[in-house]
């Protein structure tokens, strides 16, 4: 009798869970990870220089690897990081931005993809090594 009671309870629970999920799926409107970002208002970093826009020049060259970075290094030195003025309105341009050309963006993207492929190859090699043991 007790076992039958447990079975009835489990069956009822299953039906309730299914109904709840169906309800949630039908009423859900956001499927991306949007809600993971909390509504933190952007604030200026404490101690930033007041009252004027800062244009900062990147002076170091990226270690692009392969040695063929002469044009990219000179281009890197012209990359600017812009910080918006303190008193800018919230509805205007984003306060942080990067002054980067598409050419340089593609170069760093290619580097990242090459790194990803190399790491995947290394991971595959390790897996194959462990399978062979």
């Amino acid at each position, binding site marked *: 009798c007790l076992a039958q009671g447990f079975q009835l309870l489990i069956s009822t629970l299953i039906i309730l*869970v299914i109904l709840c999920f169906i309800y949630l799926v039908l009423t859900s409107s956001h499927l991306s990870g949007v809600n993971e970002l909390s509504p933190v208002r952007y604030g200026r970093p404490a101690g930033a220089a007041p009252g004027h826009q800062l244009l900062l020049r*990147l002076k170091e060259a990226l270690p692009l690897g392969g040695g063929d970075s002469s044009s990219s290094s000179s281009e890197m030195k012209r990359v600017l990081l812009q910080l918006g003025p303190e008193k800018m309105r919230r509805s205007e341009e984003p306060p942080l931005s990067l002054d980067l050309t598409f050419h340089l963006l593609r170069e760093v993207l290619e580097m990242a993809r090459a790194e990803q492929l190399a790491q995947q190859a290394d991971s595959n090699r390790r897996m194959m090594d462990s399978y062979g043991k």
Partner: protein
Amino acid sequence: MERTFREQLFFLLLCLSVLSGDCRYIENNDVSKDELYALFKSDLRREIPDLLMYRRPLRCLDMVAMEGQFTFTAETPQLSCAAFFMAEPSEVISVEYDSVDIDCSGGDFITVFDGWVMRGEKFPSSQDHPLPLYERYVDYCDSGSARKSVRSSQNVAMVFFRVHSAGSSFTLTVRKHTNPFPCNVISQSPEGRYTMVIPQQHRNCSFSIIYPVAIDVSEFSLGRRNNFPKRSLPGCAESGDYVQLLGGSGIDTSKLLPITDLCISFTGPTHLKIGCDNTVVRMVSSGRFVSRVSFSYRLLDSQELQTIKLNNVEDFCFNN
């Protein structure tokens, strides 16, 4: 435990997994059969063992396309740094702060942005992103220990950081998570194929290719059979559901120039060569249909680019 009771318990757990939509990962990700509670995890992926996690230093200007831990250590004051994060189209990125040793009161900051910002332009545009602009910036110094992890809404994100003192450091743990209905995407490569689906949602989604490409739109459907002949009409805005092909030299899709609109469902290739730094396929959906567009793209070679340049009266892609 009785056999029938155990079977019902397993069935209950199976129902939970099925309805959360992650069951396909049970098969692919080698979830241990003995760990019943693993099924409750929303991210049914094998957790990378700490020993095998990829690690490397983070550079002042960097692009990261993989999971792992990236540590920035300032040898000299670094006042202008940014790192781009990129994932597959069907993934989103989470960035977790670890071992942060910066001086917030001294002007140091680490700010994660939900998207990419370049030359004052942002992707996704404000029109296509669900959050207001200032909520897309999450500052470590403002949020403190309350927000140790930030998740993007699409397959790209970036972080800006500044440290004034040599020796300051921080570690970012980057993870990728599945996004079952990707909306705004930047392509990792200059060639490929993609199908964008908007499942009855009133939203606009963009697929951005930061290369000059030849693009073939093979199918555009609104979730119902349509026997209209293949053609594009000028000015599809009134239809509410259409596909735009945009081009330009920025990443903000709202500032790109429209090349053509497609607002009639069709099946069959539409070929276009777009010699712009950024080519975007943008789908506008009213939410009445399951909108779907399939396309493939390949990089234009120098000869094709030259031909386009010579043939165009308005070289809007080359003049900016």
